[in-house]
């Protein structure tokens, strides 16, 4: 038996080697590069890259924009995704599958192609959005060319892109609530609204939170939409943090500052994820606790 378990241990170590190597190459070493570049100039330690952050108006502007973009997109996509999931769940007709296919389409289309679509749709000269608004007596502005409207346009396109994910997570959770619970509730004389509040809501809460976390990180990462639709413009109206880092690194060629900004970005994302993991049951839902004890 001793031989057996030694063999077991060895096998485990060999099997886990790839991810360890991966971790060193793709995480530890890049992190070292980031820290080194952010904290040195000409081989000497310095915190200059960080102390110039509060004086960088473009950074502050990007941060406020990121918050604006983030809050609006997540709110809008939750509204759409949640609504779609409930409606499809309640719908008992024969076209369930067909509708479901339509509702997840944006998930598989590349962000660049999605951006291209919205460029076509929002065109002020021949776009159908302008034309359709015309029926209501509205004249649509040059969405992407206006400093105040470019961001709302991007938020709308972004919600189109990301809401299907919320739909899918919530819909799956709705399906996982056992039907018998509703039957029992109706036998007990529980009304529809009460059943929704006391059975549906608790049944899908964990999934909704998971959707929220994964999706939030996804939204914070958006890049292609900004790059293709407005390239940060007009002026710098649609700069968000990820896009700004790209600009600093690959247009201004300030590698040291870009590294410092990357660390800032990582700190924001990490604290957000850690916060949510700490205060919700996400780990349990994702099977992490189960896996850990398994």
């Amino acid at each position, binding site marked *: 038996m001793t031989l*057996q378990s030694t063999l*077991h*241990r060895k*096998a*485990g170590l060999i099997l*886990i080697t790839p*991810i360890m190597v*991966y*971790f060193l190459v*793709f995480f530890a070493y*890049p*992190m070292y*590069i*980031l820290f080194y570049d952010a904290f040195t100039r000409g081989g000497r330690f310095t915190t200059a890259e960080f102390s110039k952050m509060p004086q960088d108006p473009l950074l502050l502007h990007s941060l406020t924009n990121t918050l604006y973009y983030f809050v609006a997109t997540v709110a809008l996509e939750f509204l759409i995704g949640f609504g*779609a999931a409930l*409606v499809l769940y309640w*719908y008992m*007709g024969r076209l369930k599958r067909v*509708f*479901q*296919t339509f*509702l*997840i*389409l944006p*998930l598989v*289309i*590349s962000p660049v*192609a999605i*951006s*291209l679509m919205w460029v*076509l749709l929002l065109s002020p*000269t021949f*776009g*159908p959005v302008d034309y359709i608004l015309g029926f209501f007596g509205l004249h649509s502005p040059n969405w992407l060319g206006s400093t105040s409207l470019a961001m709302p346009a991007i938020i709308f396109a972004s919600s*189109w892109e990301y809401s*299907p994910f919320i739909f899918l*997570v919530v819909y*799956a959770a709705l399906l*996982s609530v056992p039907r018998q619970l509703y039957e029992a509730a109706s036998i007990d004389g529980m009304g529809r609204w009460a059943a929704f509040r006391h059975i549906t809501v608790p049944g899908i809460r964990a*999934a909704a939170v998971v959707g929220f976390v994964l999706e939030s990180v996804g939204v914070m*990462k958006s*890049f*292609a939409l900004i*790059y293709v639709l407005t*390239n940060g413009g007009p002026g710098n109206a649609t700069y968000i943090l*990820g896009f700004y880092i*790209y600009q600093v*690194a690959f247009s201004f060629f300030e*590698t040291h500052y*870009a590294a410092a900004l*990357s660390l800032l*970005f*990582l700190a924001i*994302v*990490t604290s957000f994820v850690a916060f949510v993991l700490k205060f919700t049951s996400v780990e349990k839902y*994702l*099977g*992490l606790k189960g*896996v*850990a004890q398994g």
Partner: protein
Amino acid sequence: MKGTTLLLAALLAAMALFYAFPLYWTLVTSLKTNLDVFSYPPSFLPPHPTLSNFYSAEQSAQTVTQTAIGSLPWMLNSSLIALMSSLISTFAIGAPSAYALTRHIKRRIWPARMILFMTMLPEAAFVVPYYIITRNLLLLNNWFGLMLVYLSFTAPFATWLLMGFFNAIPMSIEEASQIDGLSPFETFYKISLKIVIPGVITVLILNFISCWNEFLYALTMTYTPFPSGAQTVQVFMAGFVVIEKGVAWGGLAAAGIFAMLPGILLAVLAQKYLTRGFTWGGTKGV
């Protein structure tokens, strides 16, 4: 009851329209002549349907590369990179590591958390170091280089998802195989890996799609003013949009249709696997 079903169906149809219309509009634009694209009011069916945006170079302002067929070499790059990266991440990293973490390693909560964290890392924060490493290895604009960079997100995702699948296998099956004299390795690749084939397919499909769709790494590592080398179809298309905005809309839309095809095909043909993967293995039966 009948009325409710109809009302819900109407709502769903409206939503389906909301998601389908942008796609439909791209398709219609790709079938229009350049003259029709610019006509106002816009027509919702192509007045003079043509496939020339897909293959010919007839239109005066366009060259061959600006029709959709010009995007084929870059689609080939994308496919190769996505295929290699998803295969390696699944079979060389994800499967063995996930198996070890669910079956051999006792203190696994922190490694598991780390892997979950790695799946969420923002590309923008790592693009600088990855660019430096790739440049120093002389792998810029090289499909091998981009394939490696893509492992940064395909590998943790594969590991994470497969952990869930391996965990669902009853221990008794593996114990039985050990009693039958199979080594731990044989148990892994002859028994357990075969049981999780649905999971493997899910991971391959999703990683393929995320590589195919990836933009930021591809842009920084394969962009050249004139497309060359390992440039992916996304970078090609984005460059096309930025340069040709307001010029070759038809060709652009056609290229967009080409670039969406793999994803849409998979959404229709492999929906079962997709939904399982998109909900992070946390669900069954959608």
